[in-house]
């Protein structure tokens, strides 16, 4: 059945991601959310990775984060014995049932329609439905109006874009003034010892794992090679600044194996 197909493909990528990064990829994505620190009401556009990243990974984390923030807010109010009328209380319950807290919205956009289909099925299976939309689109040519989103994320996706500067320009266009660009991507390791180990791991271990687990040695070899070609932290920061983003910063994770770049449209 369709569900079985979805299950096995999604599982394969999960296992692959887990083995390759020793499960650390989950921490990287969690860190991205903590940096984002969204509040109820945030409009997010997640331009997904498509291959290595399961479409929906960032979106689901975003929804969880917003929901727990909302619950926390309500509990705080109750704790401090603030008076809530029955109408206020019932309204806050209804909001949760019909939409995400504060009217938050997530749009997941990817060039790979199969991955989106899997992501959507996963969402339905896990109980994420409201406030979540799926659109097949090209990061270099987004099908959205100007000044729409509060946050734009791209996790392990920009490396595969042919014209990175175009993707950055599109990100700038669709963000609201005050909006934030966040990119989670493989980067250059800054420590020589770790760098050597990483090289060995990348070129020896990963393609073999790729073959054994996913039956797909070539894709994972391509993955490793594409990581080498992607600009290092400072160079990518400059590209983001050239696009017009301000207050551009990056944070290295795991000795620079991965970095989170951030910029604002002001």
């Amino acid at each position, binding site marked *: 059945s369709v569900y079985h197909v979805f299950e096995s493909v999604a599982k394969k990528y999960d296992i692959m991601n887990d083995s390759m990064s020793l499960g650390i990829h989950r921490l990287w994505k969690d860190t991205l959310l903590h940096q984002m620190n969204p509040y109820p009401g945030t409009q997010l556009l997640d331009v997904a990775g498509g291959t290595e990243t399961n479409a929906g990974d960032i979106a689901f984390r975003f929804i969880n984060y917003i929901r727990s923030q909302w619950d926390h807010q309500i509990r705080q109010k109750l704790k401090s014995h603030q008076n809530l009328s029955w109408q206020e209380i019932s309204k806050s319950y209804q909001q949760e049932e019909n939409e995400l807290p504060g009217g938050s919205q997530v749009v997941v956009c990817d060039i790979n329609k199969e991955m989106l289909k899997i992501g959507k099925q996963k969402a339905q299976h896990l109980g994420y439905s409201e406030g979540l939309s799926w659109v097949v689109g090209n990061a270099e040519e987004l*099908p959205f109006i100007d000044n729409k989103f509060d946050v734009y994320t791209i996790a392990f996706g920009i490396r595969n874009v042919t014209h990175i500067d175009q993707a950055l320009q599109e990100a700038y266009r669709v963000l609201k003034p005050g909006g934030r660009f966040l990119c989670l991507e493989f980067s250059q390791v800054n420590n020589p010892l770790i760098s050597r180990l990483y090289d060995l791991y990348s070129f020896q271990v990963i393609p073999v794992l790729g073959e054994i687990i996913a039956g797909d040695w070539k894709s994972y070899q391509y993955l490793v090679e594409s990581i080498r070609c992607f600009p290092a932290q400072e160079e990518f920061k400059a590209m983001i600044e050239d696009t017009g983003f301000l207050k551009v910063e990056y944070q290295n994770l795991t000795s620079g194996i991965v970095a989170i770049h951030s910029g604002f449209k002001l």
Partner: protein
Amino acid sequence: MRGWYGSRTLVSALLGGQSQPSGAAANRRLRVAALRRASGGQKGREQQQLFDTALLQFLVCPLSKKPLRYEESTNELINQELGIAYPITDGIPNMIPQAARMIDRKIQDEESKKT
């Protein structure tokens, strides 16, 4: 945590169950439900599977960045100006220009003459 969700159902019970839904989300649901009824038949229902017309508020043609029209009969998003139609599969719109098809200009002109 469990007590919290328990009290939620208590509140809705006290307030006499689900009142008339309001707001954009409810309008969207009603529109989708109408689409489902209008399509008729099992196949139609599967194809129409939940295209959320609320997306049209911010979804545009990737080429011209201009608004689109939802064509229910073919389940496509139309850019009238450029004469192209983007397909929707499983409720997911495909906004890659290569995926779009050209609409026959002649048919378009005839239809606009009728209205």
